[in-house]
């Protein structure tokens, strides 16, 4: 963090108290309590809030910017909120699976439940409400995906949520259409703030001189989020069974249409490394 501070960069932390989690995991395993239904018990929200506070304190001491990745709980939101109120340069991220899914889906041992054993865990409705509230009052700044789906193995499904294709639509359906976020907050958290937080030049705004990275979004288009409507090579979706209202129909990158009429029409490998600075 001191090196980050000296170079005016951004420290990004996955914050959980691992010693405590390992202790709880060991105890649960001794009682035969393994698998999805024990995942949240093993990783209590207090252990996440503690680690977020610790990272905030260290960033304060080092003088560095801090982004707390995948905040999943009320305690984490609270600590980010208090740090911001003190004027510290702290930002918070959450992910669609924490906003849309709950630990009710982890009560079975099937492959879908196994694939959702992410860290930190998907929690209950009370924590989910705190995340939406945190987004609405700008305690949490950005929504990313932690997209990391894995192919199932023969006997189990490794953990990892898919979301890279569905995020914008999920936040629109479960945020804007439910009245939790305004249209502007949706754009801010999904498009504008990430560019600011990561220091991506010419990105994230509809302003002359900015890159023409633009999405045309049909607010009335319905789409079922099943694997055969999506473009991952995986045969599962973390959001299987959910239908969203509102979906992107045209995607433009640096002035070039890359998706329209349900087809990818861009050139392979056209993406560029974004060199950053604040």
């Amino acid at each position, binding site marked *: 963090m001191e090196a980050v501070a000296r170079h005016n960069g951004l420290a990004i932390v996955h914050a959980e108290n691992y*010693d*405590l989690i390992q202790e709880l995991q060991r105890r649960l395993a001794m009682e035969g309590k393994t698998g999805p239904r024990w995942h949240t018990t093993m990783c*209590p929200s*207090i252990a996440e809030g*503690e680690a977020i506070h610790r990272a905030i304190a*260290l960033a304060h001491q080092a003088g560095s910017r801090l982004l707390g990745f995948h905040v999943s709980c009320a305690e984490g939101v609270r600590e980010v909120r208090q740090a911001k109120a003190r004027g510290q340069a702290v930002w918070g991220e959450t992910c669609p699976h924490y906003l849309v899914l709950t630990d009710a889906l982890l009560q079975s041992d099937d492959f879908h439940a196994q694939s959702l054993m992410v860290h930190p865990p998907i929690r209950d409705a009370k924590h989910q409400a705190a995340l939406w509230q945190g987004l609405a009052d700008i305690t949490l700044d950005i929504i990313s995906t932690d997209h990391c789906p894995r192919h199932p193995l023969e006997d189990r499904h490794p953990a990892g949520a898919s979301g890279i294709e569905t995020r914008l639509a999920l936040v629109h359906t479960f945020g804007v259409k439910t009245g939790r976020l305004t249209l502007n907050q949706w754009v801010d958290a999904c498009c504008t703030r990430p560019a600011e937080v990561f220091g991506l030049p010419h990105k994230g705004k509809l302003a002359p001189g900015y890159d023409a990275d633009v999405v045309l979004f049909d607010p009335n288009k319905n789409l079922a989020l099943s694997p055969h409507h999506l473009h991952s090579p995986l045969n599962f979706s973390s959001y299987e069974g959910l239908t969203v209202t509102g979906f992107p129909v045209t995607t433009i990158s640096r002035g070039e249409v890359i998706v329209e009429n349900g087809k990818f029409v861009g050139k392979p490998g056209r993406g560029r490394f974004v060199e950053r600075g604040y």
Partner: protein
Amino acid sequence: MAYDLVIKNGTLIAAHDFFTADLAISGERIAAIGHDLTGKREINARGLYVIPGAIDGHVHLTDPRYAPLYTPSADSFAVGSQAAAFGGVTSFVDFAAPKAGISLVEELERRQEEADGQAVIDYALNLTLRDTNPERIQELPTIFTRGVTSIKMFMAYEGYQLDDVTIFRAMEVVAKHKGLAVLHAENFEIIQELRRRLTAAGKTGPDWHLAGCPSTTEGEAVYRVIAFAQLAGARLLLYHQTCEEGVREIGLAKARGQPVFGEVCVAYLVYTSADYKRSLERGYSILTSPPIREPHHQAALWQGLADGTLDIVSTDHGPRQRKPDQPGQGISSIEARLALVHHFGVRAGRLSLNRWVEVCCTNPAKIFALPRKGQLIPGYDADLVLFDPNKAFTFSPQTLHSAIDFSSYDGITVTGYPVVTLSRGEVLVEDGQFVGQPGRGRFIERG
């Protein structure tokens, strides 16, 4: 009927009110509060405050086995407890601190044997857990049956530091037995890193003490153990709060309804970090960890005491006989606390008289669960102090009763000082003399 002893016409100050009355004692207990009470002996307290005896919840009397945090040649139980009595203290909480590998019960018994027959006032013990062996934690329930209900744990310092998981495991035992977890909270890894850098740059001594222990490292650790205590369901006392970050986190935890208490030690209320630079002698006389900090931190401590965020004022009394080549840490406060908090708190308008009594006398009894201590209520132990609010007193090694040849408060003059101290109905100090029996103090069994 005539009571054994009546304190006549004093101004009785309790945690919530004050009034002029007689206080009558039968045997070891307060028998009655009223007017025109008569006793076989009477003490005129007109113009004096009559308050519950002060309780010092944080004292390290000498024990060479506990080096480096304790050193020989300082206050024994006999000398330290007598000095305490002169300062209006009638109970204190010290420690049994078994090294790793030593049975908790054996060390507790040894420490009690050391104190019994020496202490002149009543004492309780914390058990300091220094062993991370999970089997050692299994001995804690036995400790609770021996009248020791508070478990002290260090997050910092060699020979004492415990890891997060050990602290959490011990807190679970504390929770099950409705005890009290007592924490020294500092982030030792960061402190070690900063000290290493300072030492490499030749920056050592009192001048640089503060730079090695920034307030952020304390606030971080305070929050961390508040989180562990919440998860474990344990009552928590944070020892020696020194900074606004710690006060802030305790205040927020209290606002969330968590049973968390905060202690400040009197040196942090009297001195600021500028005093480390004033002279090398003064600097070493107030060297302690966590360090004494800048004025805005001191203001946060007084504010926290006034608004109820911090609950008690203790001393962390740990005097060291100084040797030129081994300065060591430790502040001597056991005798000075009640008068210092009165002078710098009440007289300076920072605390009410009632709050002074609450943080020095009443709350320590409640938080440490000392039975029949800390309040002016019939049936409670007649542990009392007669305090003259107008008596001027200048601290120096000559006017204090510690075994060491310096005072951390040398040269400070306060207005207001204890003039008579009673313990369980017996006058221990009057007319500037100790008149009690040696070794009369008792171990306070808690439950």
